[in-house]
Structures are given as structure tokens and as C-alpha cells.
């Protein structure tokens, strides 16, 4: 049970993981659209009061996942001592974002904050309830990186953290430049 929750990539990877991950990401973006959840960064998730077109939510999810794949793949090419497949990394990192669906669902009951006076203890508690989903995602992302590239131990953890920080910066830059285009050009 624990293996399926925290190390599912022992059993599933490659194309099957990629397809499943994409389907869950697609469903997550639909839920995010209705619960107004923004995945505006590689490991970011926020609620908002703004109503934006659906494709913004889909692109945010894709950018968040894509930047993690690009950065982890580059790091693995430099540091991994054995060969690995891109599709394993892409597939497992896509599936690792599954807990974000829980975060998007939770936002149906967490009202967005417009100013500091809106924050109530109840709301704070609900916001903290989203933290396990983020932690779970981080654990799964590390397992995805570790299993796909056969990197273990402290070195793997440090490389993964570094990659994630670069991915976060990359996703922010991409969103910064794409966001004005996304909201101005409606399909």
C-alpha cells in the first residue's frame, strides 16, 4: 500500500505513466478552472478570485510539468552515471502531479483571499489542509526522478532540489511572458 502511495513508479513508468499522468493533468485543469486554482509554478498552487479562460489553467499545468521535466532531464544528463529514458522521466513526473487534483478539489471550500482581513482561523486551517497534497507531490516527484534516472542518496536529493528550484524559476519566467498573451488572445 505504501509503495503504491509513495513509490508507484516501482510498478508504472514510461508511456503508460505518461498517458495516465496527462489524463489526470487534463482532469485536474478542469477542476482547477471551476475551483479557480492556479498552478502558477513548478510546485505552486494558489486559489484566486479571478475568472480566466479554461486554456490558461491547462497551460499553467502543462508549463508546471514541462519545466520540471526539462530541468530534471538536463540535471540527469549531467549527473546520472547510467543511461535512462526520457519517456520514463516525462511519464513519472506527469503521474507525480496526481495529488494536485486533491489540492484543486480542496479549493472548492477554501475562499480566495483578497485582503488580509479575510483570513479567519477556519480558512487558515483549510489552507493548511492543502499542505499534505503539496508534500505528497514533492515526494512523488523525487521518487519519479530517482527511479527514472537511478540516482539515490544525498547527491540525488541535492540535485533534485536544485532542479526543482530552477524549474520553479523557469516556469515563473514562462508564465510571466506567456500570461499577458494568454489572457489577451482568447480562443
Amino acid at each position, binding site marked *: 500500500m505504501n509503495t503504491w502511495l509513495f513509490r508507484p*513508479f516501482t*510498478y508504472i*513508468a514510461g508511456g503508460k*505513466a505518461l498517458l495516465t499522468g496527462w489524463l489526470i493533468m487534463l482532469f485536474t485543469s478542469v477542476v482547477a478552472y471551476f475551483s479557480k486554482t492556479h498552478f502558477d509554478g513548478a510546485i505552486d498552487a494558489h486559489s484566486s478570485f479571478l475568472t480566466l479562460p479554461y486554456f490558461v489553467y491547462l497551460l499553467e499545468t502543462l508549463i508546471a510539468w514541462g519545466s520540471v521535466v526539462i530541468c530534471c532531464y538536463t540535471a540527469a544528463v549531467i549527473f546520472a552515471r547510467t543511461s535512462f*529514458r526520457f519517456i520514463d522521466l516525462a511519464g513519472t513526473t506527469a503521474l507525480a502531479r496526481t495529488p494536485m487534483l486533491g489540492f484543486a478539489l480542496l479549493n472548492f471550500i477554501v475562499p480566495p483571499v483578497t485582503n488580509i482581513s479575510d483570513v479567519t482561523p477556519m480558512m487558515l486551517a483549510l489552507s493548511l489542509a492543502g499542505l499534505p497534497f503539496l508534500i505528497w507531490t514533492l515526494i512523488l516527484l523525487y521518487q519519479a526522478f530517482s*527511479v*527514472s534516472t537511478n540516482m539515490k542518496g544525498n547527491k540525488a536529493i541535492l540535485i533534485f532540489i536544485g532542479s526543482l528550484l530552477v524549474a520553479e524559476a523557469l516556469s515563473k519566467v514562462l508564465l510571466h511572458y506567456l500570461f499577458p498573451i494568454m489572457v489577451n488572445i482568447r480562443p
Partner: protein
Amino acid sequence: MKAIKKSLPLSCPSCASPLKVTSLACEACDTMVSGSFELPLLARLAADDLQFVIDFVKSSGSLKVMAQQLGLSYPTVRNRLDDIIHNIETIEKNIKTSP
């Protein structure tokens, strides 16, 4: 009485050097052969690693087939193989450096 599963000792319990075979026996006629024989490289692997190598050969060296048979993902099986390759390299290095 519970049967004990014996495993081949590979290194000296005193100094951790690789062990050699010094005697072999025929159970049919009680003939004993003495000498100093090196253990084959694959026999120096741990039992589960050796079983993995046997399964790998039986599946014609296909990691995809092995992954399907074991119910594991492809990278999990490939990582196991990479770890065994690393173990073999370590054993080879130990053989070269041992007296």
C-alpha cells in the same frame, strides 16, 4: 526440524577477503579433490542478484519482458541491472587487488 537454507559464503568472516574453494567432494563415492580454485565471477554475486541474472538470460536479455514477468516498471528492472553491473565491477576490482 526446520531445514536451514544455506548460502555460499563469499568473503572471509575474519578479514573480508574473497574466499577460494579448497576442496570438492563427490557424494556418490566419497572422493575428495583438494586444491585452490577461484570462484567464478557470477557465483560471487548475492543469491537474489544471481537469480536476476538467470531470469535476465532466460528472457533473452529483454528488460521489457522481465518487467512484465515481474510486474515491475521498466526503469525499476533496469536500475536493478545497473546495480548488479556495479556489483560485478566492484567484485572484479576486489579480485584484482586481493593477494
